[in-house]
């Protein structure tokens, strides 16, 4: 409880809340899009590098393989849970349900980054290889979501978009490439190679995260107020799905033997919903799905929920599962 409150009162989260309040009050506060994009790329490069350096230090372990396998499995399974909930409880058509399910099966880099910050402050720093799990979990859900949308009869873009462009979007998505690339650079460079660039990627990290979350608060509020298709039922799902997925993630993490910090990180990944890789792929493959809707759900509701309530919740669950099982 105390931990949850101290999380809420850290500048990182307070800036997010400031952004959200400003957005709801329709203040004209706005961070230029290119700056926000730049900060987002910076955060990915930094988290990738740091994860790689940690793996270079810690060396290879069986835990890595187990975590990667678990992440991959979650990426394929979670959308299969979300889809029926979105169709029958959320009353979405097949195309939109498939598109939204893909978002919830995939992951949000910034939710992960914020979670790692919070866990590290609470002495539960997850293993460096969780960055690789993050990267691996970005794409499987896209494939499952498209499969589900197609089964429901959505001719994907008139046969267009199925081709190379879509596959490139899915597999060579910018955030995947940057995460994996920086991770590998971190492994190659190791601690010695990282030291000269550490002031940029480590010391400045939290400050940048503050400003980025300020923007995310603004964006989340805008998404929420601008969408037309948001219903109460869907809003309920945008909170229920991350709780369910986070619980599954925490449980799986503990069961495969991860430490509490890493299991919490896996829970945060499972609970988080994509807002970079998946929206771009859906726009290309399912142009008829309502982009305003899936962004309102993932960015407008799930993201703020995870940042403020979810992260401490999933951490508590992981600790509890660890206690029960031990």
């Amino acid at each position, binding site marked *: 409880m105390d931990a949850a409150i101290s999380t809420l009162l850290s500048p990182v989260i307070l800036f997010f809340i400031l952004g959200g309040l400003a957005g709801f009050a329709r203040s004209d506060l706005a961070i230029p*899009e*290119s700056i*926000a*994009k730049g900060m*987002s790329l910076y955060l990915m490069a930094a988290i990738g590098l740091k994860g790689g350096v940690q793996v270079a230090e810690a060396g290879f372990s069986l835990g890595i393989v187990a975590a990667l396998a678990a992440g991959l499995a979650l990426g394929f399974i979670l959308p299969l849970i979300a889809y029926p909930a979105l169709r029958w409880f959320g009353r979405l058509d097949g195309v939109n349900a498939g598109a939204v399910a893909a978002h919830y099966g995939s992951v949000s880099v910034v939710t992960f980054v914020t979670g790692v910050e919070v866990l590290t402050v609470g002495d539960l720093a997850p293993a460096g290889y969780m960055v690789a799990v993050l990267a691996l979990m970005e794409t499987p859900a896209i494939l499952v979501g498209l499969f589900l949308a197609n089964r429901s009869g959505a*001719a994907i*873009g*008139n046969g*267009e*978009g199925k081709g190379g*462009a879509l596959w490139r*979007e899915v597999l060579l998505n910018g955030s995947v490439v940057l995460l994996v690339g920086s991770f590998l650079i971190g492994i190659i460079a190791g601690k010695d190679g990282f030291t000269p660039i550490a002031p940029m990627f480590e010391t400045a990290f939290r400050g940048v995260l503050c400003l980025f979350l300020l923007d995310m608060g603004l*964006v989340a509020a*805008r998404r929420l107020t*601008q*969408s*037309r*298709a948001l219903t109460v039922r869907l809003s309920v799902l945008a909170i229920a799905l991350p709780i369910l997925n986070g619980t599954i993630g925490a449980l799986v993490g503990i069961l495969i033997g991860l430490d509490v910090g890493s299991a919490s990180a896996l829970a945060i990944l499972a609970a988080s919903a994509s*807002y*970079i890789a998946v*929206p*771009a792929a*859906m*726009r*290309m493959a399912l*142009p*008829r799905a*309502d*982009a*305003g*809707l899936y*962004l309102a759900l993932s*960015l407008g509701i799930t993201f703020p929920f995870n940042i403020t309530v979810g992260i401490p919740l999933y951490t508590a669950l992981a600790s509890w599962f660890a206690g029960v099982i031990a």
Partner: protein
Amino acid sequence: MTTTVRRRRIEVLVDKPLMSTVEKHAELAGIEHYTIFAAHSGRGHTGRWSDDQLTGALAKRMFLAVSNEETSDRFIEALTPFLDSHGLVLFVSNVEVVRGERY
């Protein structure tokens, strides 16, 4: 006075991730020269949108080409099946150009 000839100006509003479809059909139809502009924001059947470079999913572009009647007809014909599925917005109008042989 400089002599001008009539040509067709084709404009297509298209989601950024779907621009490659428009470009492909432009090139197939024989439109070799075109220019693309970034839209800033707008309003459509799903409400207000504005380009946030972050998700990229809401960005829109304006494709602009000036060409002769024949080429432009071929291009419009080729795009028609995508108007609905890709949510394209297509306008055509008349313009006058100098050095008409270039278009």
